[in-house]
């Protein structure tokens, strides 16, 4: 098992009037190579949770194990952990600072103390992985478009060669094309390299399409944990949490109510198309 979270609790501004319980007794395990989707309404504790996973925040209570080792035990190198568990923040393009694209991507691996050659090699590889063409490498990151900036920022984390990649709403503010490109690249990383992915997103369609497992957060607690099909069966409870199921799931449910015999666990448009065609053929 790669990541194990045990009874994690985090309280902001403890002991003041501004006290706020962001996480409350959260436990789960994420095995190597899983693609996990993390959903929850704004303020449900998702962002706080993922910042714990690479040791950026110290929990108020509870433990986190990475490959069986307690990451908050004394002498555990958090820096080492951060190279293994890559975290891409929301709007990661806001953290770019270098004069050109390639140097910005070099920042991460250079902090790991690698040789200059290796740093460069990793940066180039990461930029290729996110599909940034060579002609952009020497440009200032501030001259790029929003989608390209974001790819450079993601490359900056990938260049650290992480085993686990956590992305906090990587598609926020992108157009549909940019969104699909980024998510397809993430899926490629997952499939080709067996990278563990934790994806935070508000798009239930994306979750149904990419995630193998969904974690649902609600008011700092883990509300559901299961495959997307299992989770979206609870669409009524999800709605009470300010979430929803994919649009197509609603269509499927409406069809079933009108007597169409179709599997209720359909969560993607493609699956719905195939199922409907099968129904029509039978008829």
């Amino acid at each position, binding site marked *: 098992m790669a990541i194990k979270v045990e009874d994690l609790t985090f309280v902001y501004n403890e002991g003041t*009037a501004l006290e706020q319980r962001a996480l409350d007794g959260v436990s789960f395990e994420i095995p190597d190579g899983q693609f996990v989707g993390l959903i929850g309404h704004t303020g449900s504790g998702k962002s706080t949770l993922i910042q714990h996973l690479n040791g*950026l925040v110290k929990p108020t209570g509870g433990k986190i194990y990475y490959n069986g080792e307690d990451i908050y035990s004394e002498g555990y190198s958090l820096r080492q952990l*951060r190279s293994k568990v890559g*975290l891409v923040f929301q709007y990661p393009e*806001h953290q*770019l600072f270098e004069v050109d694209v390639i140097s910005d991507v070099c920042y991460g691996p250079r*902090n790991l103390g690698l040789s200059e050659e290796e740093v460069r090699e990793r940066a180039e590889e990461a930029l290729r992985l996110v599909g940034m063409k060579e002609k952009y490498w020497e440009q200032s990151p501030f001259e790029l478009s929003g989608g390209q900036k974001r790819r450079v920022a993601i490359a900056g*984390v990938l260049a650290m060669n992480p085993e686990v990649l956590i992305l906090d709403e990587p598609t926020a503010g992108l157009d549909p094309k940019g969104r699909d490109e980024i998510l397809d690249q993430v899926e490629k990383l997952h499939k080709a390299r067996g990278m563990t992915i934790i994806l935070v997103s508000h798009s239930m369609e994306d979750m149904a399409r990419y995630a193998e497992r969904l974690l649902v957060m609600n008011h700092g607690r883990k509300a559901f944990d299961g495959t997307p099909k299992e989770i979206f069966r609870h669409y009524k409870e999800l709605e009470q949490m300010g979430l929803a199921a994919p649009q197509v799931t609603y269509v499927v449910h409406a069809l079933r109510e009108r007597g169409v015999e179709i599997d209720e666990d359909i969560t993607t448009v493609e699956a719905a198309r195939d199922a409907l065609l099968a129904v029509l053929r039978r008829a």
Partner: protein
Amino acid sequence: MLREITIGQYYPVDSVLHRMDPRTKLFGTMVYIVSLFLADNVWGYAAAALFLAMVIRLSRVPVAFMVRGLKAILFLLLISVSFNLFLTEGEEIFRIGFLHVTWEGVRMAGFMAVRLIFLVMGSSVMTLTTTPNQLTDGLEKSLGFLKKVRVPVHEMAMIMSIALRFIPILVEETDKIMKAQMARGADFESGGLVQKAKSMVPLLVPLFISAFRRATDLAMAMEARCYHGGEGRTKMKPLKYARRDRAAYAAYAGYLGVIVLTKLV
């Protein structure tokens, strides 16, 4: 780490002090500061302590929260106390090399420490019970008479309230960028001075860019809502004195009277 600073932070509870007109609180803070410099003996400071204790009680802000704000001036406090302690001439108690401690020095150092602590606590009562917006509103109104001599009071108040409004946003932004760079293996703590200054670049560049971006966004949003300076601008909630404010002014007068009396003792 950045959340530790409590000077200038608003503490949201409901109390008489929170509901008071900001002008009353501004004036009260001024009166209090003046009184601290008027007081010159134990009785004066006792009166000041009593007044402060009463005000803190009324504000319903936990004392622990206020004491935390003193951390910021600890260094200043130490320096001024030791200067007064070692460098005041008078009746000597003992001496180590060229440093000598006198009775007058002990007295001065003690008063200085008390004065500084009360000063900081007194003014933090104001900022803890008044939102930055109320504060600038109060300042704008109180200094309104300066408009006659062409001082751009409104513009200055607007600049101040925007600056104050941006502090928490920039603090949060700093925190976020810091974490993002730490996730890329940055180290802001170890290393010498040069190394530390260098490690700040990945933090400061994005921070400046984001501050400029926010500034242009805000300017655009203000223009879109037809902001054109203070002329002819009315307030949604004009400041108005209530009974509690009159009571407060009476209390100030009484307090100043007591302070003046202690000088005669």
